[in-house]
């Protein structure tokens, strides 16, 4: 008895899988994969603008003869004091040199001899200044100097040093009260662009440092510097097409995001096993980006659908790196999002589509909607309930 019980409790069990195939080992048939396309709910897709503005851009665009458009960037600096304080005494100074430093966020690494041209601009420049207006300001007389970017530098800081006779090219008029505005363009006939650091970006905006000799007898304390960081910046991107309310936009400035709504049947969401779901967006026009730059399409579900002010679920997102340029359908796998559309407490069948970085990218795809062009759609591959359950 004891022997039997011991054997019974400790008897080994080794369940090794027997290799098989269908139809012999598929009772009831093999569960089939089915692929279906579900278009966005008609007239329920739209674009909302204004999620972030010029002040929020993470980088500034500069471009010349570039397919994505002409772009010029500008920085404004706080007032430079006309004196320095040394040994608790305010003293006059004479300028020895000026260093203007900018950060490159991204550039086309295949372009050799990339050159930035730095101009002194009127303080009237602001986010409403467009490319023609900036070009009108960037006259040869306003040219401060150029920065030839070493071919080995793809990102990081580059600087312009002004001293001796070149200092004369950067004179702040007394009426400007020490404030300086600089414009940047890219040139030398190369069709290319770059992204420069901004106040809101991790690279940071341009810096403007003035090295001076203070009026003090102690020669060891004469050399002083005044370092200023841009307190305003912006860029202008040439001639964007007029917004068509029947199309879907992402990126741009002010930032655009598109909201898509779907009505996926419960027989697919709840009664089947979804194994792949791809959101497909069809561009209505080609887009061009910067070689070597990374721009991503971001899709998020929303916690509650209240239109353009819906709160995205920040813990869930699907990301797809956009091709540098193209006009092909963009597919992004979103199964990790739409599995939250099922169950007892499902999220709304709404997706927020945005671009990353928002507002600071050359790539500005425009997609068809349910009203114009090819509508957004979900391509869902699912497995119907398993027939093997029935003997």
């Amino acid at each position, binding site marked *: 008895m004891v022997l039997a019980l011991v054997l019974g409790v400790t*008897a080994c069990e080794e369940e090794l*899988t027997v290799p098989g195939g269908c*139809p012999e080992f598929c009772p009831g048939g*093999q569960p089939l994969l089915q692929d279906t396309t579900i278009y966005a709910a008609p007239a329920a897709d739209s674009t909302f603008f204004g999620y972030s503005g010029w002040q929020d851009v993470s980088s500034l665009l500069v471009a010349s003869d570039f397919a994505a458009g002409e772009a010029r960037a500008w920085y404004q600096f706080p007032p430079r004091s006309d004196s320095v304080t040394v040994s608790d005494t305010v003293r006059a100074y004479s300028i020895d040199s000026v260093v203007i430093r900018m950060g490159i966020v991204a550039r086309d690494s295949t372009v050799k001899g990339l050159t930035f041209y730095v101009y002194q601009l009127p303080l009237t420049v602001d986010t409403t200044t467009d490319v023609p207006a900036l070009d009108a300001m960037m006259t040869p007389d306003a040219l401060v100097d150029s920065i030839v970017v070493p071919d080995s530098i793809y990102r990081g800081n580059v600087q312009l040093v002004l001293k001796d006779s070149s200092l004369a090219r950067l004179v702040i008029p007394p009426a400007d009260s020490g404030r300086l505005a600089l414009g940047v363009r890219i040139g030398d006939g190369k069709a290319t662009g770059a992204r420069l650091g901004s106040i809101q970006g991790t690279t940071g905006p341009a810096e403007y440092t003035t090295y001076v000799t203070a009026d003090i007898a102690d020669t060891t304390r004469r050399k002083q510097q005044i370092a200023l960081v841009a307190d305003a910046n912006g860029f202008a991107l040439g001639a964007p097409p007029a917004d068509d309310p029947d199309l879907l936009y992402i990126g741009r400035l002010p930032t655009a995001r598109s909201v898509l709504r779907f009505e996926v049947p419960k027989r697919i969401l709840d009664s089947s096993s979804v194994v792949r779901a791809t959101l497909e967006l069809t561009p209505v026009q080609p887009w061009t980006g910067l070689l070597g730059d990374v721009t991503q399409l971001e899709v998020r579900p929303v916690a509650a659908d209240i239109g353009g002010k819906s709160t995205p679920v920040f813990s869930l997102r699907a990301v797809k790196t956009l091709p540098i340029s193209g006009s092909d359908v963009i597919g992004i796998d979103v199964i990790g999002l739409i599995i939250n559309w099922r169950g007892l407490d499902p999220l709304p069948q709404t997706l927020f589509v945005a671009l990353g970085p928002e507002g600071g990218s050359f790539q500005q795809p425009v997609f068809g909607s349910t009203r114009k062009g090819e509508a957004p759609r979900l391509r869902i*591959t699912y497995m119907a309930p398993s027939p093997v359950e029935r003997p």
Partner: protein
Amino acid sequence: MTRRLGIALGLTLALWGLPAPLAGQASQFGVRSLGLPLLPVSTATQGTGGGFARFDPESAINPASLSGMGRAVASFGLRQYWRTSENPYGSESGNDTAFPLILVGGPIGNRFGFGISASGLTDRTFLVGLADTVIVRDAELILSDTLISKGGVSDIRFGGSFDVSSRLSVGLGLHVMTGTNRIEYRRSFSDSSYFPVQLRNELSFAGPGVSIGLLAEPLRGLRVSAMYRLDGDLKLNKDSTRIAEIPMPRTIAAGLQWGQGRLSLGGHVLARNWSVQQDYITERDGTGASNTLEVAAGGQLLSSLRQPAKFPLRFGARWASLPYPLTASGEPGSEFSVSAGSGLLFGGGRGIVDFALERAWRSGAPGYTEKSFTLALGVAIRP
């Protein structure tokens, strides 16, 4: 006697609490429909190849055989099973354990016998790995499927016998078909863009049945038996929702046993009309069902007439056709086994340990074979 029956019943209920299921052996031939039919026999009868099944009171087949239960008994069986399966897709070996039969019974008065048993009726335990390539979204996609099934249909019998005379007994069995079948389906894909799938279902079975039996000794030393079993439709529930009702076959069997001195020989023939399920299965794209025939014969040579359970030599062979063909051609499989066994006494004769070793061969369509060894251990307590 009633007290002894109570003790036996208590022991049996305790054994039912063991963790292993009542299911039988895992087999690739149990994939289709309800799976592999099982023979609910005691370890002693398994040693005779099943040849004594119609006459053994500790086997849950012929209710009339309960008349041979001279005293209360609680018994259970344990089987360790090693198998090697081969098919055109490859081969694999494995092993598992099962408790195929638990029984308690005994005489009530001089002419009545009584027994409750729980055994496996069919077994649907298997693990199958499947690989396939399909075209999805205009691209080839390799599917890797694993189908895991555990459980099957169990049979609880409430049996009684009545001795019409010293040479004739009749029996009646009321059956409850029950049991569960846990199915797990796993699918993974060669392309990581596709999410793996894991589906789990639990099915439960329920159905009634009745069996009648007869045991006679027309000549001294020669016994004959007959049995007929009628089962109602097997109801199939998934999460308390009825999803199907499967017609169950009728069973008819007859046996013959002869004994003289230390030697006894016996055999039986059993037929089931599984083809009643043909329409049900083919409507669901299955491969159908065929009627089955089972023939078993065996013998026992006693070492002691005074203590028959002490070191007897048992031997036998069994052949049975299988109801569910694996392939669409409808070719049914079959199994053949040879077995041998013995037993010993303990506890002053109140306990018996029987053991048997069985070698079985199964085959179906060309290329589908299975070989197995089964070591069976049976314990019977007679309080």
